[in-house]
């Protein structure tokens, strides 16, 4: 039996699924810290993005700060945070966070794409539409909630999806700094040269990332007004623009996780 047969057998072995080192537990850890981080990042990034997009100020600074993040590898960021905070695992009410340095890194890498895309989506709202809404007597808040935000929503979702991919990927790397998640199978397998386990872990991680991507694409489809829908498929996103080259619908730098 070849290598792939061994991988199939690995998945067939019940002992690899249960217990503290089992697939179920590792998957739960991975999904939990990812979802918590994505939600936390969205709660920080989206309000700020909507606000500066509404008042149309501070945008260049926002985009520039996001771009600096491109050059800093998330792997480096992760190791750096562990150096600064230690391997703290919060207890009590905050135990849902899982690992503090990992959480900080995940939130930090998810904010820039969410913030930039929200801002760009808001700025892209046709000025005539804004004027029309004003002319109908809408207040600033009504304009933001009823007109600008819904129109900006496809780009907001693009930001959330880009951020989410980065989070799921970097959560995998967090196994290297001692935290759990699906990355454990890869990191532990590499150090024991158990490449069957490495491969199985990689498959699980890849599948999880694709599930996140399609799941969020589904949520986007449900929440975006039908007239504004852009085709939702991986890679089919309208991404955050690189400011130096306005006409290009550029793909963001891949989150380096």
């Amino acid at each position: 039996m070849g290598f792939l047969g061994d991988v199939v057998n690995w998945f067939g072995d019940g002992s690899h699924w249960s217990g503290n080192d089992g697939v179920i537990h590792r998957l739960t850890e991975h999904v939990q810290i990812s979802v918590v981080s994505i939600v936390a990042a969205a709660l920080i990034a989206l309000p700020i993005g909507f606000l500066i997009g509404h008042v149309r100020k501070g945008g260049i600074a926002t985009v520039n700060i996001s771009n600096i993040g491109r050059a800093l590898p998330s792997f480096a960021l992760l190791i750096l945070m562990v150096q600064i905070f230690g391997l703290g695992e919060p207890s009590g009410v905050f135990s849902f966070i899982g690992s503090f340095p990992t959480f900080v890194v995940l939130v930090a890498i998810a904010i820039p794409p969410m913030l930039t895309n929200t801002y760009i989506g808001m700025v892209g709202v046709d000025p005539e539409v804004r004027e029309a809404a004003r002319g109908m007597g809408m207040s600033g808040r009504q304009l933001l909630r009823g007109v600008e935000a819904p129109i900006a929503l496809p780009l907001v979702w693009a930001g959330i999806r880009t951020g989410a991919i980065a989070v799921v990927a970097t959560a995998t790397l967090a196994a290297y700094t001692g935290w759990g998640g699906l990355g454990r199978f890869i990191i532990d397998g590499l150090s024991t040269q158990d490449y069957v386990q490495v491969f199985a872990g990689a498959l699980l991680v890849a599948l999880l990332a694709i599930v996140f991507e399609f799941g969020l694409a589904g949520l986007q489809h449900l929440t975006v007004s039908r007239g504004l829908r852009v085709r939702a498929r991986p890679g089919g996103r309208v991404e955050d623009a690189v400011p130096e080259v306005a006409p290009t619908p550029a793909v963001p730098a891949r989150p380096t996780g």
Partner: protein
Amino acid sequence: MGPLQLAQDIGSKWIYWPWVGDHLDEIRTRLAEHITLTFWAVLLGFLIAFPLALLAVRYRRLYPPVIGVTGVLYTIPSIALFVFLIPWTGLSRTTALVPLVAYTLLILIRNIVAGLDGVPPEVREAAQGMGYRPLRQLFSVELPLALPAIVAGIRIATVTTIGLITVTALIGQGGLGQFMIDGFQRDFRTPLTVGIILSVALAVVADLLLVGAQRLVSPWARAERRRS
């Protein structure tokens, strides 16, 4: 002060210059490794992306599947993609290079296609009216106009690749990432600092060099800017 205390003091310093002085050769080697891997990844990525993008522009129906497949590849976390080939190619440079190339494809194809799409139809018609054959029209009219978008793609691909190569240290092809791993494992911050600063600096320098190269090969853009 005992020797243990001394070791801890040195370990917790963000930069300990004597170490840097002693390891200049290794720093040079790792930096060269990082640059070589980046160069090949972006070059091979471009050589694959370019014909695919041209095909997608010519035959529109090909574009969604091409973007779909490269998009799924792009979604897969790097560490997973880096270990997929180990069973066949071991902890070799090929194992690291294939995923790096795969990641550049989506960025490059989208930017090349967007650049070619941005060529105004009047320009294309004018070229046809002047009797340009398709190939000559592509190379002397359309590609020069698409250059800013294409270079933007190469820049993003390059910066991304430089960041990803730190992760390849986990499969023994680290470049500067090896310093981050060394520093982390030995609780010694100096190599960590050196690795991070050099990889960020490399990304910035590579980006600036590409901007410079673009200016060099498109003198008409400079002339236009002066006129306006």
